[in-house]
């Protein structure tokens, strides 16, 4: 009989902090170690091979697909016993190609996964109908009545107004927020202090330029908002990133009304890249716009790879402040030197947000040159 299969997609989302020794070993680790006796078989998927020892020790098969981050490569090399030359091949693996290692046959080998096409997924309504039909067939009992004591509202007035604004618009500066709420700066500061004392809001670590701070709801604030059905806007790469990208697009947009921007562009998708925004020029040229707010090394790696993508004529990278720009520039130089064998790189324009969001900045000059 086939064992019961448990597939845990994106393992890192479910994994308790295995490094915390004060809480004992995470439940999954202990379950995996003894799962065989209960006829359970686990399949984990993750972006890194950084599973806890109990899981690594019980893996009968490791399937490693393309990895390019140096840290990931190092972990894979150490964990699978690859030679440095073999590890250097992992970034070259293509779509559906993988390196496989069995527990009892440690020599890794390369495989190509079969290509399959699946029928389109059913409509949400169909899935919901099936779930409701199942629910209707299950018996359960509920507590007749549970008394809930009324809860004090911990914030009111301006603090509540500010909280609601931060929940939906943390991608704005303090003055923009004051304008939207009709508050003066002193009122806003007083309200923010209340949220700060409750642990509901905090400033982001990164600033825009030298001193423009951005505020957002803390995890506690988000939990409180959700309890009260207050909508909290989520940002893929954080509010500062969103703000900066919007401002950069707005500034570039002033050069010509014919410029069009595209987020989630499929360009470079087959290279595993996801540019923040792609600017389409009237002449058919394409310019990738990258905004760097917190992880310059990772951004530098992506920028270097984007410079080598066919169909991209220019990459514009904007760092949130001067310090980040210096780090980003050094990292880009380093990656370019490492990858000197790659195709001739496209021109790169590296800018600091403080400089390029200034009204006097010459965006025309960048696009006047032939791309």
């Amino acid at each position, binding site marked *: *009989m*086939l064992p*019961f299969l448990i*597939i845990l*997609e994106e393992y890192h*989302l*479910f994994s*308790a902090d295995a490094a915390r020794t004060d809480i004992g070993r*995470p*439940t*999954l680790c202990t*379950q995996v170690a003894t799962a*065989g006796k*209960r*006829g359970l*078989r686990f*399949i*984990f998927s*993750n*972006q890194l*091979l950084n*599973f806890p020892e109990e899981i690594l020790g*019980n893996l*009968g*098969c*490791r*399937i490693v*697909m*393309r*990895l390019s981050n140096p840290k990931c490569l190092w972990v894979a090399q150490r964990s699978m016993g690859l*030679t440095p030359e*073999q590890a*250097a*091949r992992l970034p070259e693996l293509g*779509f559906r190609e*993988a390196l496989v290692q*069995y527990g009892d046959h440690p*020599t890794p080998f*390369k*495989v190509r*996964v*079969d290509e399959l096409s*699946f029928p*389109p997924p*059913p409509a949400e309504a*169909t*899935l919901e109908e*099936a*779930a409701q039909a*199942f629910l209707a067939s*299950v*018996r*359960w009992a509920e507590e007749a009545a*549970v*008394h*809930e004591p009324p809860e004090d509202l911990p914030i009111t007035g301006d603090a509540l107004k500010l909280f609601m604004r931060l929940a939906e618009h943390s991608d704005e500066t303090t003055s923009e927020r004051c304008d939207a709420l009709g508050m003066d700066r002193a009122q806003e500061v007083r309200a923010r202090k209340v949220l700060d004392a409750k642990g509901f809001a905090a400033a982001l670590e990164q600033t825009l330029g030298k001193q423009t701070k951005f505020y957002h709801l803390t*995890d506690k604030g988000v*939990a409180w908002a959700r*309890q009260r059905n207050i909508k909290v806007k989520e940002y893929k790469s954080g509010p500062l990133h969103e703000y900066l990208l919007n401002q950069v697009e707005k500034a570039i947009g002033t050069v010509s009304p014919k410029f069009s921007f595209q987020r989630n562009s499929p360009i470079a998708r087959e290279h*595993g890249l996801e540019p923040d925004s792609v600017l389409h020029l009237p002449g058919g040229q394409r310019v990738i716009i990258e905004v760097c707010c917190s992880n310059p090394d990772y951004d530098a790696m992506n920028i270097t790879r984007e410079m080598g993508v066919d169909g991209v004529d220019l990459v514009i990278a904007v760092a949130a402040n001067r310090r980040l720009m210096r780090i980003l520039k050094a990292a880009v130089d380093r990656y370019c030197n490492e990858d000197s064998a790659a195709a001739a790189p496209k021109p790169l324009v590296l800018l600091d947000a403080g400089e390029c969001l200034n009204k006097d900045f010459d965006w025309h000059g960048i696009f006047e040159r032939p791309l």
Partner: protein
Amino acid sequence: MLETELDRLAKQLGSHRADVRRLLDLAARSADGARLVKSIFRGRLRRAGMGPDDPGAFPLVQELPPGRLRIGRAINGSAEGPVFALPEGSKANICHTAVVGETRYGKTHLLLHLACQYMNAGGLCWIFDPEAEYDVLVEAVSGPLKPLVLAPRHLRINFFQPPTDAIPWKTWLEDICLLFRQETYLRDGSLNLFDMEMRSIIEHKGLVGGRPQFPSLAAALEHFRNLKFGGRKVRSGAWLESLLNRMGMLCNVFEETSRVTHSEMLPRLARRSVIFHLRGLRGLPLQFLVHYLVTWLARYREVLPSCSPS
């Protein structure tokens, strides 16, 4: 020098193979033999489309263990190798598998491929799907083996109810304490308080039809909210705060299930394939739910190992 190179070439060809071992024996006898074997090895590698001087090449694969779940084919240099199927392991040694790699290079494709074959072969499967990518399996799997897609809002379970009557509730309560400790980071003081009070609530509720009655999560939370300590027990107050925080969080996130006292849902789910849609759930509640379901299933199968598809 020659020996090292022969060793490297043999590894690329597969040093466990009998013909390669025979040639290595021949090479060990004389220098001429070694040179001859070296050129044979290099020729074989070239024929297989592999550069013999490429130190980063992966070894050739002649045969792979059979398995019912075909994944693809091995690649030998520029040619296709044998079929690669997921190793089956044995009853004594069930092989767990890890699939690792960057986004958009085929991890989910591979897992969909496996899960589809597994379910169509009559295997049961629970998929914890944080990105809602596995719905296609509903169409790809036929008839009664079709998986059910459930979101946390569909769950009607009581976290305190043991998986079967054969598991004493006190044993299950210990499991729940461990889950609270490891997945919501509750400290010893809060856990002791939780354990002690839960025992008292369940004992106080008594038996109906020989079965213990379990409080719902919301009722347990209310009990803890009404708990009072004497002025001197200041630390107990802090432990209670943490406990109320975690239980309140679970009550809010799993609102639909928080009032359930008794349910037959999970034993029903253990007899079919399920895709748990976890999109929108994150952090500690996600961690708690996934670990709870895995622990529940492990305990359930400990008592009833041969659940067959319903």
